[in-house]
């Protein structure tokens, strides 16, 4: 604080700091609550004794979760979809963004292609037709239904093509004069100088693949093919249960919420959030740049 500050200003600065720190804590508390629950004994959790610190510390809910075949199975599906989905999506994004980043004078068909990609943002077939089409491709219950439909991430393409456009034109011109092919130019020049943008897209794609759950729910008939988030959705949230029940009363719902074991749910929720939390410092390093890059260009 500055010595020259007026009293009112000092009060404001203190209140402001307190307010913002409270706000930050509000963002974190739910996670701490779930973490405390996951390390507590289930009797303490059922009694409602757990707040922000574990009561009767135990690892049993984690042991239970990690010994559950459904949990491990879905974890495996998730890992496969993250790896495969990210590789495919990133490749498609890079090779699509490069030609689209060319000026119209250098690549006359660009405008047509740009619209071809852009239209898919504006309009979509909707849930049922997309489901029917993927069913007709016989992709239900295969990993392809999870990785291919979203592989052409148009917003990531936009982000990268704007980054490409922001690099000095001379690099491309000089390389082409020196007899470089477009393919070499892309992989040997553009990709290496676009590492910050690519890192942003890589991390966002990984998180997106990890977090996706709805595609698993509709395209996988067999729960053994569920990715982790879908498995968790059916376990923890499970509106299916409610819809099947029809006329549930408020009392029934309360009873249902109490019967199910809070601590095992909490541990599985936390395990599903863990990879994102681990990646988070890296994400934060890049996304500030990435977001600003993509959204507020001149």
């Amino acid at each position, binding site marked *: 604080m500055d010595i020259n500050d007026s009293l009112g200003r000092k009060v404001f600065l203190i209140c402001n700091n307190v307010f913002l720190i409270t706000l930050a804590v509000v963002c974190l508390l739910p996670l701490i609550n779930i973490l405390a629950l996951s390390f507590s004994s289930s009797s303490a959790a059922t009694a409602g004794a757990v707040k922000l610190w574990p009561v009767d510390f135990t690892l049993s809910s984690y042991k239970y979760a990690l010994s559950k075949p459904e949990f491990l199975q879905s974890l495996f599906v998730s890992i496969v979809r993250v790896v495969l989905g990210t590789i495919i999506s990133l490749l498609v994004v890079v090779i699509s963004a490069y030609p*689209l980043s060319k000026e119209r004078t250098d690549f006359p068909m660009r405008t047509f292609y740009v619209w071809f990609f852009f239209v898919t943002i504006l309009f979509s077939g909707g849930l049922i037709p997309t489901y029917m089409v993927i069913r007709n491709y016989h992709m239900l219950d295969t990993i392809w239904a999870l990785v291919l439909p979203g592989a052409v991430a148009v917003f990531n393409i936009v982000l990268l093509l704007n980054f490409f456009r922001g690099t000095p034109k001379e690099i491309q011109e000089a390389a082409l004069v020196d007899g470089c092919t477009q393919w070499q130019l892309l992989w040997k020049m553009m990709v290496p100088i676009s590492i910050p943008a690519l890192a942003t897209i890589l991390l966002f794609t990984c998180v997106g693949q990890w977090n996706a759950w709805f595609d698993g729910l509709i395209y996988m008939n067999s729960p053994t093919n569920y990715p982790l988030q879908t498995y968790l959705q059916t376990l923890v949230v499970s509106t299916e249960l409610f819809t099947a029940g029809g006329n549930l009363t408020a009392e029934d719902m309360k009873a249902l919420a109490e019967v199910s074991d809070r601590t095992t749910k909490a541990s599985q929720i936390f395990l599903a959030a863990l990879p994102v939390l681990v990646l988070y410092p890296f994400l*934060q390093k890049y996304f500030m740049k990435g977001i600003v890059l993509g959204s507020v260009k001149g």
Partner: protein
Amino acid sequence: MLQAATVKRRRSWKKHLPLHLMLVPGILLLIMFHYIPMAGIVIAFQNFIPAKGFFDSKWVGWNNFEFMLQMPGIGQVLWNTIFIAFLKIIFGQIAPIVTALLLNEVRKSSIKRSVQTLIYLPHFLSWVILGGILIDILSPSQGLLNEVISWFGMEPLFFLGNDKLFPYVLVVTDVWKEFGFGTIVYLAALTSINPTLYEAAIMDGAGRWKQTIHVTLPGMLPIIVLLATLGLGGVLNAGFDQVFNLYNPLVYRTGDILDTFVYRLGLIDAQYAVATAVGLFKSVVSLIFVGASYWLAYRIAGYRIF
């Protein structure tokens, strides 16, 4: 002349062949998973039977749409969608702007950075995870929030089972998840304000408050207008992921939105044709809004995504 033009075109084609080839995978995937489903919208005009497929199902014209309009509750669902989406657009804009302005006043960069780190976090967690956490925290009997409420001597509230509260629970939790992330763009806009403007304002005797009103806010205005305009496009997107993970039959009256309605109608009740018709209605209205918002953003702020 004609020959020269053909030769030139052929040469241009050959020169650009690598660029065309690079676009092949993307285009194939878009055709397979976006354009063919768009053609699949024909279901909305058919008495669609999956075994018969797109080609052999009987055409019924606008019947499905007439059926849709007669469905009980469709008006309420549409109203819920607009109401929830609208509140989210408004508060989803205001909260980050205010937070960004307050963060901008913080002197200690350590506080600023830690606050930023924490408020961005919920954005990266899926609604499945947050749904699971919220269901626990908002639970009427054991939840943390009702515990806090009881300290003040109030009756516990059944946040996710009370249809009067539910839409507001959706709005508050959505703002909670996204406001921090939303500040990024505004903070970036703040750093790009020319410092000499502040110096000039101080010379003219403006205090911090006056500086905020006359320098900071006008400096942020273009990006505020741009994001508000683009936000218009989401007027029918009330947030499927969130609603789906938090709602239940007790709150269908006020919490059911077009997307969840289509999901239950189509994939649970297997009424493919009618569900597609409802989905098509939503897509077309959204197209108009999104198109208009991009057009406006272009006219007002010169914004182009490509």
